């Protein structure tokens, strides 16, 4: 696998193959984050594209001593925040953008219940949760991507899990003793 700094240098030299490698390396992470955050495929595709174009526009600003992955994910997180803020200004009907929730609406399992609980988290907590559990970034990488201390990342993850667990209890998915209720 090509080293980050070598890859960036080749991208800056406009080598198409290097650019393709760059995209291949991060598009899964970026699109996964965007899809989980925005819950709508088209929006996630648009924001993924924005993330990469922005990353290449500012690629010279990347510092080789930093890891490339958190840098790209930071751009993706910011683009997601911007898109979510725009949604708040231009509210759509839920049917327009909830691709995730409708995947298995007839028999919601634990995963769907968790997805619903995820929606209720505040943005920072949700970004943190998705990056850690879905994208499997380390605490350190999330700390760099979200530009906050590692302690804050752990606190946010803890609060996210706690809030989601409370929601699962309120919705009757889990009982007070912490055991999953088999409703199906």
């Amino acid at each position, binding site marked *: 696998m090509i080293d980050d700094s070598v890859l960036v240098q080749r991208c800056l030299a406009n080598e198409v193959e290097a650019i393709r490698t760059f995209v291949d390396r991060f598009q899964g992470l970026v699109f996964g984050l965007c899809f989980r955050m925005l819950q709508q495929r088209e929006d996630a595709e648009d924001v993924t594209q924005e993330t990469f174009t922005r990353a*290449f526009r500012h690629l010279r600003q990347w510092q080789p001593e930093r890891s490339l992955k958190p840098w790209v994910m930071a751009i993706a997180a910011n683009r997601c925040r911007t898109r979510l803020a725009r949604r708040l200004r231009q509210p759509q009907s839920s049917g327009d953008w909830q691709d995730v929730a409708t995947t298995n609406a007839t028999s919601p399992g634990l995963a769907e219940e968790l997805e619903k609980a995820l929606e209720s988290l505040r943005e920072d907590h949700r970004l943190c949760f998705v990056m850690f559990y879905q994208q499997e970034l380390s605490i350190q990488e999330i700390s760099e991507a979200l530009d906050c201390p590692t302690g804050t990342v752990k606190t946010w993850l*803890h609060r996210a*899990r706690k809030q989601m*667990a409370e929601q699962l209890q309120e919705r009757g998915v889990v009982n007070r*003793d*912490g055991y999953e209720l088999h409703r199906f």
Partner: protein
Amino acid sequence: MAMNCTDFEQEWSEQLDSTPPEWSAAATVHLADCADCRRWLALQSVMDRAIEDWKQQPIPSISTDRILAAILAVQADQSVVVARADVPVSRPSRALSTISASLMTTVTAMTLLIVGWSFWQPDELVKSPSVAELEAVPEDVAPVTATVAEFWQDVRTGSAHAAQRTVQTWDQLPTITQRVRVTANTPPAESNAVPAPIEVDSPSSPRTELISEWSNLTRPLGQKVGTALQFLGTVLPSEAPPAS
């Protein structure tokens, strides 16, 4: 020291990225004694299972070519911008452009007024000796229009800094306080449009001093021309325009 529930949760939180968690002796003792924490830990196990299920949900993929095309389009735009930036043309700042445009508009309007007035005024006034003296522009004085054109050319082709320096130089020019009187024929009383007489202190060399009271010219056109000339006399004292 015995651990409480908050400490237990804190220790669990510290080990989020280590699976399975390695409990301290204090945490193990607390867990054995605390039913609430055992319930809480069971809930976390359900959460872990829910997260695993959630992670297994398929996420659609995105076309690499779409992203690649967008990136290449952006890079093409950037190379055009870079190519433009290579051209060694320095553009004046927006403020300087505004000032220059305002100045050009003023000078153009003034020039049109002067030309219009020269066509309009009666022959006897033009032919009057004092005004004729005013028309005798020394050879070494450049016409105002040429000077303004030169300044404008500097603004357009020179650096913004050079143009700003020119404007600053104008600001530093001394204020003209001399009053030059030009003796002219008295215009016909029945015509309001004829310029009023202008008094001159030294008729033999009217161009050596500047007229500061241009507003004494006949209204309404004369007033306008006078105002314009007064402005020009202030900013270009050595190149006052002819009065006709």
